[in-house]
């Protein structure tokens, strides 16, 4: 058994960590946090040059052709750095949808642009409150155009194209849903930025009015493709969450070592130690679940649906737990704008919802485990 990343993959992780430490310090994240830019363009270009945007995109489509294990490693570092770039929407959602369902022409059109940093992509799924469900999709497709409203759409205001889930039938079945590709710069789509708990990751409302759209995948296959895209994104995003959890734990640990109260480092008090130990436990359980998810993703195993849900739940819990307790360990300083704690707290609690809420994934996990047991 070798339930670990390879030396080459670890080397890639080190490279990514070094790169992000240099190009994505807290100061850079704060530029976006403070609203000075919608995302960090220089960092985005840098990620393209490093080959990170196309790490799992095949060479024939302009990528590095490495694979999903490599992408997991990069994802962890993106989470650790709290990178203010549209990485998850472009790489985990749009690129994965294209890889799964795109025609050769569609892949040829968009994937090289993703890898080179020229195009930002996203998935337009949600229409107001609620979790992923075919019933919630009202946006209509007719005659090669789309009309309706999607929100929230991650990075919708800066995206160049979107994979859009639309209604193409009214039987009440999953096959009522189809996917479409829309060039957001081609007219017919209006984007409005929305205020977000985590300003370093933009959200938008997209209004489609007879917007030109081409089918992605076969008509009626939309929901089945989406389910797969969400599972794959769940694993990748879980790695970001694990990276964020580890960073929050380190911040708390470092502060507990440096901060003196009652004449001793606060990290020598058991009340503080036990908070940090519990953070370590949740981060470790999440990491282990993520490794299993990474294995299932990279081998396209039949266990992926269950593994993805487990990774998603575990990593969501860990990041929420670690980021909130990092603030607690910091005390009053943790509640200032100046300290970075709140940036991870914000990111943890928005990432927890991006692909559907925790309770949604809990439900999914139990359904999937029952299916497996019944089989």
């Amino acid at each position: 058994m070798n339930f670990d990343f390879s030396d080459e993959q670890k080397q890639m992780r080190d490279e990514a960590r070094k790169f992000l430490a240099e190009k994505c310090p807290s100061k850079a994240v704060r530029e976006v946090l403070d609203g000075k830019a919608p995302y960090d363009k220089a960092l985005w270009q840098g990620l393209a040059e490093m080959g990170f945007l196309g790490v799992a995109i095949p060479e024939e489509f302009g990528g590095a052709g490495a694979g999903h294990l490599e992408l997991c490693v990069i994802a962890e570092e993106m989470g650790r750095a709290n990178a203010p770039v549209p990485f998850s929407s472009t790489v985990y959602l749009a690129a994965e949808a294209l890889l799964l369902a795109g025609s050769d022409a569609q892949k040829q059109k968009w994937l090289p642009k993703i890898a080179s940093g020229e195009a930002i992509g996203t998935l337009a799924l949600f229409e107001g409150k609620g979790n992923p469900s075919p019933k919630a999709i009202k946006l209509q497709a007719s005659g090669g155009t789309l009309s309706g409203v999607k929100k929230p759409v991650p990075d919708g205001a800066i995206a160049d194209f979107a994979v859009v889930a639309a209604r193409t039938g009214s039987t009440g079945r999953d096959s009522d849903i189809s996917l479409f590709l829309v060039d957001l710069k081609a007219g017919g789509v209006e984007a409005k930025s929305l205020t977000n708990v985590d300003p370093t990751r933009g959200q938008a409302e997209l209004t489609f009015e007879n917007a030109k759209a081409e089918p992605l995948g076969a008509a009626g296959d939309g929901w089945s493709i989406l389910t797969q895209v969400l599972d794959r994104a769940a694993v990748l995003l879980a790695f970001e969450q694990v990276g964020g959890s580890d960073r929050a734990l380190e911040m708390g640990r470092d502060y507990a070592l440096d901060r003196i109260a009652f004449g001793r480092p606060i990290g020598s008090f058991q009340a503080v130690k036990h908070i940090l130990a519990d953070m370590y436990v949740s981060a470790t359980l999440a990491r282990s679940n993520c490794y299993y998810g990474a294995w299932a993703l990279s081998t396209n195993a039949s266990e992926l649906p269950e593994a993805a849900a487990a990774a998603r739940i575990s990593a969501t819990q860990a990041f929420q737990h670690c980021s909130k307790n990092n603030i607690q360990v910091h005390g009053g300083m943790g509640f200032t704008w100046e300290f970075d704690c709140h940036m991870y707290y914000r990111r943890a609690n928005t990432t927890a919802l991006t692909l559907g809420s925790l309770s949604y994934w809990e439900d999914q996990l139990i359904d999937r485990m029952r299916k497996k047991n019944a089989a």
Partner: protein
Amino acid sequence: MNFDDTPQEAEFRATARKWIEANAPKKYEAELSKSSLGRIRLEKEEIVDVGKAWQKKKAEGGWACLHWPKEYGGRGATPIEKVIWQQEEGVYGKLTQPFQIGEGMCGPTVMAFGSEEHKRHYLPKLASGEHIWCQLFSEPAGGSDVAGLRTRAEKKGDNWIVNGQKIWTSGAHYSDYGLLITRTDPNVPKHKGLTMFFLDMKSKGVEVRPIKQANGMQEFNEVYFTDVVIPDHQRLGAVGDGWNVSLTTLMNERMSIGSRLATGFPEMFEFCSNLMTDDGLAIDDPATRSKLANWAVKASGLKYTSYRAISSLSKGERPGPENSIGKLVSGSMLQDIATYAMDLQGAAGELSGADEQEASGQFQQMLLSSPSMRIAGGTDEILRNIIAERVLGLPGDIRVDKDVPFNKIPTKGR
């Protein structure tokens, strides 16, 4: 990233599997698979007797204590081979329960500190199950604070005379030998005045009294020492170096206890999948599903954490204090699962008879047994300290008794 054995590991696994297939006591298989919640009992026979027979057979086939050197009764196997053996041994591994303290703690301590003569004499018999060993560390005055122990050993010629009391000694009532830590110098700070021995449990002056536990069972004992004579050659390590010797034992304790952990989750999932409530199957209830999902990811998280540890072993790395996580997570889980499983049964959840319940009383038993899982082998709090100090690198606790002569440390709270 893969779950595959290396060619050598695969070959070892095949050999082990073949041997187990040919030699395992299959008539106990069904009974053993059912007793999965830390409570192993056989209907008609004593677990110790059946266990001894299995252990003897393993020793004859070269499968006992297999990571030990051959000359001490082992197989000279690698740590990863030991893990593979445990996976293959499966339910029959439960029969090794009476030997786990000897194999996991006492044996390694004798191996590290015993004379060559002792090692060749005692270890093969420990490995083959002929002799069962117990560990005499905890005392009424020293549980988590092991170094606060008060059992005295005084030198008299070539012997030591031991007086005092130990507690929580698992299996003392059927043990042949014991690993015993004593205080040999009360005039120095507590960690410095300790000395380790091993002794024959049938020595004159050793009295074992069973403790009736909160769950009604009797697995632990009190052990009293009255002028017990231990020859000096049965000392392990230098006089006054007992604390360092005990660290070897305790390190092994946390690792061996962590290796076969029950979480209660598979039982709970099955229970909820079949339990019909007034509102339908329990597993269709949103609150229950949420709890199940939480336990599911803890159980899988622990499983894959152990796979990661096995992978490090396979690469020749040594697992460290990070393995404290297993017992810390599973102990509370057992307790929470038991509580909720009973909650789902409503008022009838109170009843614990094997014939009364949908789940034949297993969760009621789990409820009553689980508190010990959070205490034995390092309390939850001690394990959190270990993670904080030895994994995360936080400073040790301020110890007010550290530099005080042992006999000047206060013994009463108020």
